[in-house]
């Protein structure tokens, strides 16, 4: 379990332009969860994500990963083995000259023996659908492929939790879809906990639970259906509801008996068939 206990974080501490980036965050993410975090630019999403593996430490309060406190220097390596991080720009996270070397990098660093390393690299290549690219040079891959290499590198460490900070913002529609499919499989079949930050409401709609952030606080938590039924609140926070939900709301306002929190195209088609 990941637990945030009244976590506050400041940037520029001790200077006259101190910024409160996180303010009294209390949050629990259970093993196996499939959660999205949304919020306007500057609402604290990335700062929150960087607290999960101890890249950033709380100004006050505590972050626990499976009971280990990120402030505890003795536990930090345990925590980083459990929590894999995937950022926006894969180019910043790729270092080796071949895909398989890149995936093995983390394992070498923690001294995994060769046989086990090979097994894990094969396993990760397989899950991220990278078998045919194993000897390719990472910088020659497409954005979506690069992002899959980063994910595979994290998986090879046998992470329990995978934190992805806008991993699809630089990808084309196909790459985006592919990444979402892979993390869904990871969650459903391998039980890996997914914490996914996104600016795309249609992506957030595919998760089991959504945390909504505003000005360093979590202001709304719930299933996509319950979160996206609060369209006015979301708009005040600089967010929006998915396009299909926008349509449902407009139809409901015009007298069609249709729930205003429809989020998927399939559901919309089903409801509309009742009327037309």
């Amino acid at each position, binding site marked *: 379990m990941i637990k945030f206990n009244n976590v506050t974080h400041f940037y520029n501490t001790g200077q006259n332009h101190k910024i409160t980036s996180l303010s009294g965050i209390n949050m629990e993410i259970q093993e196996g969860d499939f959660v999205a975090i949304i*919020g*306007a*630019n*500057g609402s604290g999403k990335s700062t929150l994500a960087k607290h999960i593996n101890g890249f950033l430490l709380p100004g006050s309060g505590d972050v626990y990963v499976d009971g280990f406190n990120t402030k505890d220097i003795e536990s930090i390596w345990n925590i980083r083995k459990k929590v894999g991080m995937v950022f*926006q720009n894969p180019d910043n996270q790729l270092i080796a000259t071949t895909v398989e070397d890149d995936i093995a990098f983390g394992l070498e660093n923690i001294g995994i023996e060769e046989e086990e390393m090979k097994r894990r690299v094969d396993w990760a290549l397989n899950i991220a659908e990278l078998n045919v690219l194993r000897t390719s040079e990472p910088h*020659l891959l*497409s*954005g*979506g492929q690069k992002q899959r290499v980063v994910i595979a590198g994290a998986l090879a460490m046998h992470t329990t939790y995978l934190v992805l900070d*806008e991993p699809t*913002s*630089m*990808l*084309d*529609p*196909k*790459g*985006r*879809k592919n990444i979402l499919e892979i993390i869904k499989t990871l969650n459903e079949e391998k039980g890996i906990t997914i914490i996914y930050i996104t*600016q795309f*409401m*249609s992506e957030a709609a595919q998760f089991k639970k959504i945390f909504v952030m505003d000005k360093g606080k979590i202001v709304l938590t719930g299933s996509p259906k319950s979160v996206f039924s609060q369209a006015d609140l979301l708009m005040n926070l*600089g*967010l*929006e509801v*998915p*396009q*299909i939900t*926008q*349509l449902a709301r*407009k*139809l409901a306002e*015009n007298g*069609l008996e249709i729930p205003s929190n429809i989020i998927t*195209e399939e559901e*919309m*088609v089903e409801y*509309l*068939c009742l*009327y*037309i």
Partner: protein
Amino acid sequence: MPFETEALKNINLEIDKGEFVGIIGHTGCGKTTLLQLLNGLLKPTKGQILIDNIDIHQDKRKLREVRKKIGLSFQYPEAQFFEETISKEIAFGPNNMGVTGKELDERIQKSLKMVDMDYHCYKDRSPFTLSGGEMRRLAIASILAIEPEVVVLDEPTASLDPQSCSKILSVIVNLHQKYSKTIIMVSHNMEIMAELAKRIIVMEKGKVIMDDTPRNIFQYSIEKLENIGLSLPPVTYTMYKLKKIGKPISSGILTVEEAKDEILKLARSIKRK
């Protein structure tokens, strides 16, 4: 050369003054190469690029003229900021072209106004204190300061939140409508393209495979788009599905508003029967 790749293959394309053109296609389809050719950052291996009937690579002085006419904003343009203040950041381009003094100041004021940023409020601030959305607008302002006729934007909304995203889009629409700029925009966001572009160019493997109005593309070429793995705006897709299962609905719906009107029209006519 070992890594030689044919990024673009025999492209024939004409863009008129005042158009709003959207370019879509996968990573690696040649979009960025095309944009870089447009203002002479790259030179075609074969073929010509004519701007106002002049071959841009004919002589070097011409190229300078071209760069004044075509303002190019790359992906994540904020990564290129380096000045201490916003007015210095905007001044950099025109200053290099020899604009100074009062005219330079006027250009800074005008450019900020065009992206809906208040001159007095922003001029002395550091570019690095801006929010993500403001940074994007500043990047556009610094291009506008060279007074280009054509504004080329590569993924202007990438990783912005919905509100900053719609703000920047309204700035772009304004550049087109109020300031009569020709807009060429690359985006992976089909909802934006369907709503804003007047013409969409679809690229695949270095070729232009479609070139039409959004309405025609999202009406007649849906299967083709799906085959190359491009997505459709969710409302367009929903209406397409309804049509496919036999509902008497018109396809090629581009926006939420159009979808609403179409569904209500149909629902009412069925009720009357």
